[in-house]
C-alpha cells in the first residue's frame, strides 16, 4: 500500500524513491546482472564511473541536480516474498542538490534492508564509499502516530558537493501485503535515464498502467522478465497550491499475479481491492454487549433515526480519542470494535469501525471508504492502487430519511442514498464533510467488493464567512462599532481547531486581534466573544466590538475612508516570474460575504465613492459595491470560489482576479464637509 490508514498528513519522502516503503510491492530484482558492486579500495562502481562523462542537456539555472541513472529491479520470488534492488546516481548541479547525498531507505516489520552502500565521485580526487554500517536508523512515522514499526535507514554520502556525482545501491527484501509496485520515475529533479525491470516466477503475468506519462513498451529480457526505460524526464518543481505530487508525476503501476490466480492480487481492480479490505476487516465490526449498551443509552431519548445516528456519530467523534498505533498489518486492519470501545481510543479506521458497529445496532448499514486526504492523489482515471491514507464511513440512509443537514450525500445505483461521514474529524458536523474529502475519490468497500466513487462537492455556501458590521465614524477619524461573524464548514472548523489548542482563556481573542491587525493600523478590542465554540453542529462565530483611532485619514478638509474595513481576499499566489506549470487547487468551495454599514460623522457628506466591482471568471467571482443613503454608507462584497481547480490555461485570469480584489480592498471613499 502506498500509505497506512492513519490519517497521514505528511510523510517524509525518501531521497531514493518518492513512494513510501509501504508500497505493497517491494521489489526484487536480479535481472540484467544487477550484482551488488564488489569493489576494492572504496572506489565507486563501474556503472557510476560510466556516468562521469555522459553528455547532458542544458538545464535551467535553478536545477539542483540531475538524476543521471536510475535502475530498479524487482524480483517476485513468490506471492509473499519480493526483492527490490535500486541503484541511482545524481550529479549535483547546485548547493541545494547536496540533499541527494543523504540516502533514506524505508523499511518496517515486513521488510528488511539487506544491503546499502553509497559512493561519491568527486570532480577531483579519489572516490568515497560508505556502507550500511555507517547508516543510522530513525523512526519514520508522523509525530501523531504513537507506535509504528516504520523506520528508515539513513546513509550520508561524503562530499555531495557541486560538480560531484553521488550514487547508491540498496536491496530490500519484502513480504508484501499487495502484489503491486509503483515505479515513480518522475521526480523533483530531471532524470536522464531510468530503468525498471521485473522478473516474475514462471507462469506469472503482469499488468501495467501509466500515470501522467505516455505508455512505454517493455523489452523482454527472457526468463519471464521485462525491462522498461524512460529517458530525459523533466523535473516537477513545486508550486504553491498545486495538485499533490503523486497526482502529476509520471508513474508506472505494475500488478502481478499467477495466470490462474488473479484474485490473489488485491490491486488488480477496485472491486478486488474492496473485497480484500472487507475480508481483512472480517467480523471486527461486530458489537460487544458494552457497545450495545452504549448504543441503547445514546439513543434512548432519540425519537428519530436521524437523531440516533447523530448521537452515535457525536459519540465516536468526541468521546473516542484519536490514537494511531500502526504495526504490521495494523496499518490497514482496524482493531475489533469492542477493543476500540473499551479503550476509548483508535485511529481513523478504528473510528470508522466503531461507528459502523454502533450504527448497525440501530439497523443502519454503513461501509468503509478508503481515501487520500489530498484530493488528486487518487483520481477516477487511475488504475486500482492503494494511494489511500485515511478511512471514513459511508452510511446508507434509511429509505425516506431526508433532512437539510444531510449535505454530503450521493445517490448510489445499488445502495441508494449514502451519506459520507468522517468520524476522525470532530469539528465537521454530521451531515457534512471537510474540503479535503469533497470531489475526492475513495474506495467504497462493501461486503461483496469495492468501487472507486467520487465524493460530493458541497455548495459554496456551506463553507463561508458572513461578516456584518455596524460602525460609526466620528469627526476625528475614529471608527468604532460591532461586528458579527458567522462561520460554516472549514471556515468554522479551522478556527475551532486553532482555538482548541489555546491554553488560556485570555488568548481566545487572539484570532480576532490578528484579523483586525491585518486590516487596521490601530485598534482596541472593547468586547469579544465566541459563538458556539463547543457546539460543533452549530455555526461558529465571533462577536466583537472595536475602536480604531485615525481610521479615516485627513486630507486637507477631506476625510478618506476605506469602506472595506476588515478582511483580505487578495493573494499574491501567482505573482511570480515563472510561468505556471500545474493547475491551482482550492481547498474547498467558498462563499464569503462582508456587509459593513458605516455612519459618517455629522458635518460631512460623501463626495466620492469607489466604483463597484463585478468580476466573474466562472471558477470564482467577486462583487463589491458602495452605496450611500443619507449619512450611511453600505459596503457589501461577495467572494466566491465555485470550482476546486483552475487549469494552467486560466492561471492568468486568476492572477487578474486577485489583482482586482487587491485593488478593491485598497479603494477609498472621500468625505467632505457638508455645504
Amino acid at each position, binding site marked *: 500500500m502506498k500509505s497506512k490508514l492513519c490519517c497521514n498528513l505528511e510523510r517524509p519522502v525518501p531521497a531514493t524513491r518518492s513512494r513510501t516503503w509501504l508500497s505493497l510491492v517491494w521489489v526484487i530484482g536480479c535481472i540484467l546482472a544487477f550484482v551488488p558492486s564488489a569493489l576494492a579500495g572504496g572506489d565507486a562502481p563501474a556503472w557510476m564511473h560510466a556516468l562521469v562523462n555522459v553528455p547532458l542537456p542544458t538545464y535551467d539555472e*535553478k536545477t539542483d541536480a540531475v538524476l543521471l541513472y536510475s535502475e530498479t529491479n524487482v524480483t517476485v520470488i513468490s506471492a509473499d516474498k519480493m526483492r527490490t534492488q535500486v541503484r541511482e546516481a545524481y550529479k549535483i548541479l*547546485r*548547493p541545494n542538490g547536496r540533499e541527494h547525498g543523504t540516502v533514506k531507505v524505508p523499511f518496517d516489520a515486513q521488510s528488511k534492508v539487506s544491503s546499502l552502500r553509497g559512493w561519491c565521485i568527486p570532480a577531483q*580526487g*579519489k572516490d*568515497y564509499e560508505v556502507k550500511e*554500517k555507517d*547508516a*543510522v*536508523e*530513525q*523512526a519514520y512515522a508522523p509525530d501523531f502516530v*504513537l*507506535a*509504528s514499526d516504520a*523506520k528508515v535507514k539513513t546513509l*550520508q554520502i*561524503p*562530499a555531495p558537493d557541486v560538480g560531484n556525482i553521488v550514487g547508491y545501491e540498496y536491496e530490500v527484501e519484502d513480504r508484501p501485503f499487495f502484489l503491486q509496485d509503483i515505479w515513480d520515475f518522475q521526480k523533483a529533479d530531471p532524470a536522464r535515464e531510468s530503468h525498471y525491470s521485473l522478473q516474475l516466477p514462471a507462469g506469472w503475468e503482469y499488468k501495467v498502467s501509466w500515470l501522467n506519462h505516455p505508455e512505454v513498451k517493455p523489452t523482454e529480457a527472457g526468463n519471464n522478465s521485462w525491462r522498461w526505460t524512460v529517458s530525459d524526464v523533466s523535473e516537477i518543481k513545486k508550486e504553491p497550491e498545486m495538485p499533490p505530487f503523486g497526482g502529476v508525476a509520471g508513474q508506472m503501476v505494475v500488478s502481478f499475479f499467477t495466470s490462474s490466480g488473479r484474485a490473489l492480487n488485491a490491486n488488480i481492480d477496485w472491486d478486488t481491492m474492496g473485497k480484500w479490505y472487507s475480508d481483512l476487516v472480517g467480523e471486527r465490526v461486530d458489537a460487544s454487549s458494552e457497545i450495545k449498551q452504549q448504543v441503547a443509552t445514546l439513543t434512548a431519548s432519540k425519537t428519530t433515526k436521524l437523531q440516533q445516528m447523530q448521537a452515535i456519530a457525536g459519540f465516536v467523534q468526541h468521546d473516542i*480519542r484519536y*490514537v494511531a498505533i500502526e504495526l504490521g498489518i495494523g496499518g490497514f486492519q482496524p482493531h475489533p470494535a469492542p477493543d476500540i470501545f*473499551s*479503550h*476509548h*481510543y483508535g485511529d481513523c479506521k478504528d473510528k470508522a469501525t466503531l461507528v459502523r458497529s454502533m450504527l448497525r445496532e440501530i439497523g443502519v448499514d454503513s461501509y468503509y471508504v478508503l481515501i487520500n486526504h489530498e484530493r488528486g492523489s487518487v483520481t477516477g482515471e487511475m488504475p486500482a492502487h492503494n494511494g489511500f491514507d485515511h478511512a471514513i464511513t459511508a452510511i446508507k440512509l434509511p429509505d425516506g430519511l431526508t433532512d437539510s443537514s444531510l449535505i454530503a450525500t450521493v445517490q448510489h445505483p445499488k445502495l441508494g442514498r449514502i451519506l459520507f461521514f468522517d468520524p476522525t474529524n470532530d469539528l465537521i458536523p454530521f451531515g457534512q464533510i471537510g474540503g479535503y474529502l469533497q470531489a475526492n475519490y475513495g474506495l467504497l468497500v462493501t461486503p461483496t467488493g469495492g468501487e472507486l466513487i467520487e465524493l460530493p462537492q458541497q455548495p459554496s455556501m456551506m463553507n463561508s464567512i458572513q461578516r456584518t458590521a455596524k460602525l460609526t465614524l466620528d469627526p476625528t477619524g475614529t471608527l468604532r462599532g460591532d461586528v458579527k461573524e458567522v462561520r460554516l464548514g472549514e471556515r468554522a472548523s479551522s478556527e475551532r481547531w486553532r482555538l*482548541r*489548542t*489555546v*491554553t*488560556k482563556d*485570555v488568548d*481566545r481573542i487572539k484570532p480576532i486581534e*490578528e484579523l483586525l*491587525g*491585518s486590516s487596521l*493600523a490601530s*485598534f*482596541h*478590542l472593547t468586547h469579544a466573544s465566541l459563538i458556539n465554540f463547543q457546539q460543533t453542529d452549530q455555526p461558529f462565530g465571533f462577536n466583537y466590538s472595536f475602536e480604531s483611532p*485615525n481610521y479615516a*485619514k*485627513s*486630507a*486637507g478638509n*477631506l476625510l*478618506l475612508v*476605506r469602506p472595506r474595513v476588515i478582511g483580505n481576499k487578495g*493573494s*499574491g499566489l501567482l*505573482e511570480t516570474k515563472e510561468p505556471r506549470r500545474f493547475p491551482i487547487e482550492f481547498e474547498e468551495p467558498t462563499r464569503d460575504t462582508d456587509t459593513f454599514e458605516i455612519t459618517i460623522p455629522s458635518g460631512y457628506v460623501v463626495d*466620492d465613492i*469607489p466604483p463597484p466591482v463585478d468580476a466573474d471568471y466562472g471558477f470564482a467571482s467577486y462583487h463589491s459595491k458602495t452605496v450611500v443613503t443619507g449619512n450611511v454608507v453600505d459596503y457589501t462584497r461577495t467572494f466566491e470560489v465555485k470550482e476546486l481547480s483552475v487549469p494552467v490555461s486560466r492561471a492568468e485570469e486568476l492572477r487578474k482576479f*486577485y*489583482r482586482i480584489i*487587491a485593488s478593491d480592498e*485598497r*479603494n*477609498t*471613499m*472621500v468625505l467632505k464637509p457638508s455645504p
Partner: protein
Amino acid sequence: MLLRRVFSTGCCAVSLILAAANFVPVPVFASAGFQPPNPDELKMTSEPLAPGAPAIILYRQVDRDDNAQTPHEDDYIRIKILTEEGRKYADVEIPFFRESEDIVKIRARTVHPDGSIINFEGKVYEKIIEKGRSSHYLAKTFTLQDVEVGSIIEYYFTYDLREHYVYDSHWILSSDLLTKSAAFSLKPYTAYYSTMQLRWTWHDLPIGSVPKQGPDKIVRMEASNIPAFQTEDFMPPANELMSRVDFIYSDELPENNPDKFWKNVGKKRNGQLESFVGKRKAMEDAVAQIVSPSDSPELKLRKIYDRVQQIRNKSYELRKTEQEVKREKEKPVENVEDLWKRGYGNGVQLTWLYLALVRAAGFEAYGCWVSDRREYFFNPKIMEPYKLNANVVLVKLNGKDLYFDPGAEFTPFGLLTWAETGVIGLRLDKDGGTWIQTTLPAASESRMERRANLKLTDTGDLEGKVTVTYTGLEAMYHRLDVRHDDDVAHKKFMEDRLKSQVPAAIEAELVNKPDWSGSGTPLVAEFDIKIPGWAANAGKRVVLPAAIFTEVEKHIFEHANRAYPIYFEYPYEKIDDIAIELPPGWSVNSVPPAQAQDGHVVAYDLKVENRKDTLHLTRKLTVDFLILEPKYYMALRNFFQAVRTGDEEQIVLQPGAASASN
C-alpha cells in the same frame, strides 16, 4: 566566536566517569506509587490559576539517587484533564539514551471523576528516534485508556541509570501545563575516597521554593503553582523564563565565594590562552607582512582584522563526514604560529590569532571570554564557567575599549555578533582577570536603507528602481544566512526579502551582484520592481499610501496581552527615501502631515513632500533597546500602532485627463 557546548537531548548529560566503588546502595527512595484519589481533585472542572487550560499537573515528584551502583530516578506525575484537547496528555512518550539509561517500571492508570480506576494494562512500545553506530536514542511510548474530560491520569516510571557513572541533572519545573504541586529530591553521589562535589544553581523558582540539603545530604525542594510556560514573539531565551534547578558535579574543591571562584577560572583560562597565543616572534613576522609602520593605529587594527578574516575559518564550513575529515589530513592547530602557517583554524582560534597579532603590532590587547546571550543571561554569582562561552578581543585605543571578533564570519570591523554585544565577560590576565561589559552598537550601526526612484503609471501601477543597503549586523546576518548558497539562491533570497517588506503583491528582479563575501562593506541590492495597482481608486481622485515598505511592522505586537519581557537581538534602524514621479498631467491635492513619534528607545518619522510632479517620501524607524519589561508592552504596542497609522496616511492625487483605473 561562540564556543558551543555539546548538550545531549535526553534528560541527562554525561558529566564524569567514576571508578567503580565498593559501595552498597541504600534504597532510600522507593518508587512513588499511586496516590489515593482526592475527592476535590476528582470534582475539579477548572483551575482558577489557569483559566482555559486543557489540563493541569496536580502533582509531580522526582526522586533521584546518584549512588554509584544502582543510580536511578523515579518520576511520578498526576494530571487532571479539563478539556477534550487535554486528553492528548494520555499519550505519553519518554525519551532516553540506551547507552546511559533505560526506562523501567512503568505503571499508569486512569481515574474517572466517579473514583473508578482503570489500570493501564496496554503495551509499552519502544520507538527508535535515532539509532547509529554509537548512539541509540529511543523513547518508550504508551497511551492510557478510557480517558475522558474530568479524568485524572497518573503514571510513574524509573530511569535506570548506568552504573558507575554520574550525570549532571536538572529539575525543570516549568512545563506547558500549570503544576499545582511538586516535590523533588536528589541523593548525591558520595564516596569517601573521591573529591567529587555537587553544587547546584537555580533560576526563577516559585516564591518559597529553594533547594536545601538535609543532614542526610539529600537535596530536597517542594514547589507549588508553577505557571505554564508559553511562547511569545520577541521573548528572551526560554532558559531565562523557565523555573529550573541545575545540578553540577565537579572534581574541583568547592568555592563558595564568586570572586575567588572566577579568579580561579580566569587564571586557568588565561594560562590556556597564553599558551596558545604566546608566539611573539612568529607574530611579529606575520604583522610585518600585514601592516606598514606608517599606518595609523586604527588602520593597523583594520588591516590585521581583514587579514585574519581571510584565513579559512573551519567553524563555518559545511559539516563533513568522518571520511572527508580523515582524508584532509589536517593537523590540529596547537597555537597561533601553527594557525598562521597552515592557513586554517576554527573561529575561536582565529579570534585568538587576532589577539596575538595586535599585541605583536604593539597594542594593549586582552583576550576575553564573554557569555553569549542566545540561550542564557549570564550572572557571575551563579558560578557556571561554561556560560562564558564566546571569545572576543579587547583592544585599548586612545583610552577606549574596542571589541573584536574576527573569528565570527562576516562580522564587520568594530562590531561583535549580536549575542556577544552588551554582555558581561571576563577580561583575562595572569591575576584572574576583571569583569567587562561589551559594547552595544547603536541602532544606526545596523541599518536597512531603501532608496527608490519610482514612477506611478496612469493605471495605478508603481514601477522603477529600488536600492536596498544593509549595514552592520543587518548585512552580517544576511551574509551568514546564505553563505553556502549560489548566485541563484542569493538572488531569490534578496527578492523574497524585498517582497516580504511590501504589503501587496510585487514583482521584483535583482539586477546587481551584491558583495556576499565582504564583512566591512555594506550589502547593496538593486532591484527593478513593479507593484501592480498600488494607487487606490477614490472615485475621481486617486490615493497613495505615504509609505511602501511597511509589511514587517504591520503585524508586530498585535495582541493586547503580554506575559514575558520584550527582547530584540540588537538595535536597528530602517530608513526609506523614495521618489515617485507622477503621470503627466496629474497633480497633488494633498499630502499628509509629517509624523513624528519619539518613544525614547523607539522613534519614527515620516514625511511626504510634494515637489511639483514628484512626491518625496521619507521614513525612519529606530528600535534602540534590547529588553523591556512587560509593563512597557502597552506603550510599545501603541508606538507600533502609531507607526502603522502613519504608514497608512494617504496622499491624494488628481488624475489628468485620463482617469486612473485599476
